[in-house]
């Protein structure tokens, strides 16, 4: 497979590019998290595990329907599957805490769920890491000064499209507007006749589905194993805090910023502390701006 030579070699640009691609994945997962927090004030530590479940669903789907169609189909299957799981999780677990809504309770519940899902997955799927075959056959692409795999490039495009579609949904559709309204001011939304219960379920389902969707991309680019959800969860939280919890636009910016900061920091400062960069950033940001770079949506 011949690939054209690069015009100019630039490590810096390559790392920025790498960062943007990884950042798009962070965005996908973080948006779901921040949406759920914005509307329902739930900090879900098991969010990354939804990505993991999405990846496994995709794996089984592809085993049945292979090839191109299989991969695209698995993205849909994962989103739907995880959406359904999210519905039940919200309805029967988090909803029960509605009356005693302390942050500690919800975080604890989600931590318990996280432990359960991770280890349950290990029991059911086995600890051996698995791969989704690259639908592009491991080809790579050279774009002038940077190169990457075809798969990553396409995942980047898919992520951006998904984010764009979500924004459309939230701005243009009636339901989307209702979600934003609830996020901004729950009581006013109630007064306007919005069915809060329905909005809660819908938000959680959409947020989780996004995570599941992102999980398939994650799983194809990297690998699928039961503990793959932990890192994305922490990164997603870092992104949501960077951008301000509940703030979707903030999450989008935050995701890309984190991605690039990690690759540049890893390249020029220290490879060993690459994973700490996200945390260092949020600590620094929070010390100065307690509600994140773009501020939290105010609630009453």
């Amino acid at each position, binding site marked *: 497979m011949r690939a054209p030579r690069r015009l100019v070699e630039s490590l810096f640009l390559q790392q920025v590019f790498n960062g943007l691609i990884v950042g798009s994945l962070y965005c996908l997962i973080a948006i779901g998290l921040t949406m759920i927090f914005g509307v329902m004030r739930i900090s879900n530590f098991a969010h990354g595990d939804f990505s993991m479940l999405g990846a496994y669903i995709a794996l089984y789907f592809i085993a049945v329907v292979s090839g191109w169609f299989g991969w695209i189909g698995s993205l849909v299957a994962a989103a739907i599957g995880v959406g359904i799981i999210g519905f039940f999780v919200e309805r029967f677990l988090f909803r029960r805490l509605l009356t005693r809504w302390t942050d500690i*309770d919800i*975080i604890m519940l989600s931590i318990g769920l996280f*432990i359960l899902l991770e280890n*349950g997955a290990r029991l059911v799927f086995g600890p051996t890491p698995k791969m989704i075959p690259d639908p592009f056959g491991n080809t790579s692409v050279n774009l002038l000064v940077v190169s990457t795999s075809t798969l990553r490039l396409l995942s980047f495009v898919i992520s951006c499209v998904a984010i764009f579609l979500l924004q459309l949904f939230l701005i243009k559709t009636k339901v989307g507007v209702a979600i934003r309204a609830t996020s901004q001011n729950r009581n006013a939304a109630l007064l306007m006749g919005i069915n809060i219960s329905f909005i809660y379920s819908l938000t959680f389902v959409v947020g989780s589905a996004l995570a599941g969707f992102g999980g398939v991309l994650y799983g194809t680019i990297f690998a699928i194993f039961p503990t793959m959800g932990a890192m994305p969860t*922490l990164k997603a939280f870092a992104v949501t805090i960077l951008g301000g919890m509940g703030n979707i636009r903030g999450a989008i910016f935050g995701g890309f910023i984190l991605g690039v900061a990690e690759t540049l920091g890893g390249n020029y400062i220290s490879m060993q502390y690459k994973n*700490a960069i996200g945390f*260092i950033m949020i*600590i620094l940001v929070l010390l100065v701006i*307690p509600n994140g770079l773009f501020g939290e949506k105010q609630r009453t």
Partner: protein
Amino acid sequence: MNRKSVKWPLIALGALILLALPWIIRDRYVQHLMVLSCISIILSSSWNLLAGYSGLLNLGHAAFFGIGGYTSALLALKLGLSPWIGLPLGGVMASFFGILLGIPSFRLSGPYLAITTIGFSEILRLVSMNWVSMTRGSLGLYGIPPFTPLKLSEKIFIPFTTEQNVYYIVLVFTVLILFLLKKLIHSEFGISLKSMREDEIGSESIGIHASYYKLMVFMISAFLAGFAGSLYAHYIRLISPEMLSLGETFSVLTMVMVGGLGTLGGPVIGAVLLTFLSEGLRFVEDYAKIDIRLIIYGLLLMLTILFMRNGIAGIWKEIIKPIISKPER
């Protein structure tokens, strides 16, 4: 016979049993679990101070544990310092970091604080993994000296290399710390903490400066956790960056929630129960060939939050205590 006069004999009996335990139970493995339980009680109680009594959710607590352990171990290994001195020094070092973490807590709350604490402990964990010249990285520090033997006289010499003897050390410290915590909780300081937990703004209005209390409680909690870490280091005689992992914090958290958040007895019950449960579940692994230990942990945590919010101590208060206590005449 009223309840007061029953109290002291009961306590004496309890103390006697605890002291005699290693002579009754000779199985060294169970003795090992007893030592671990005591250390876990101290660690859990320290976390409970933050989350239960002060409403501060610290998900990076394992960092304090690890800092205490590493400090004491390094002092012993590199400077030849006696572990008895290293013990409080480990706590002191941890409390410095406690202050560091206390400062962000002035302005942050809820999930913001929680994530910051996670970031804090993850960064420290990475430091302990990568600062190889100091900490030997992921290999950890092994060959940590045990507590130096006590010389009571020319002939009487008590080494601390067996589970049984270390048990007595940790038992004494555990009881002492629980006693001090009880005094603290019932003092003016403790009441101020609780009021700050319930309503921070309201407390400020009556002169309780939240910042001061947050700083103090982080300091104390971190000291105790670091102390527990030093105990652990000189008992197991090896430590690794794993001690600072999120998994450790989640373990502590589960113990306190299941035992009963915001009570003195809760961490005790939770720590003992989960230490023994965790080891006991190994037998399921042997027979059924599957590992369900952590799954049970996760389930337990979830069920507790959903159905037994105040843990076992809460159930005691709600259900059992009213049954056994006679109405006052």
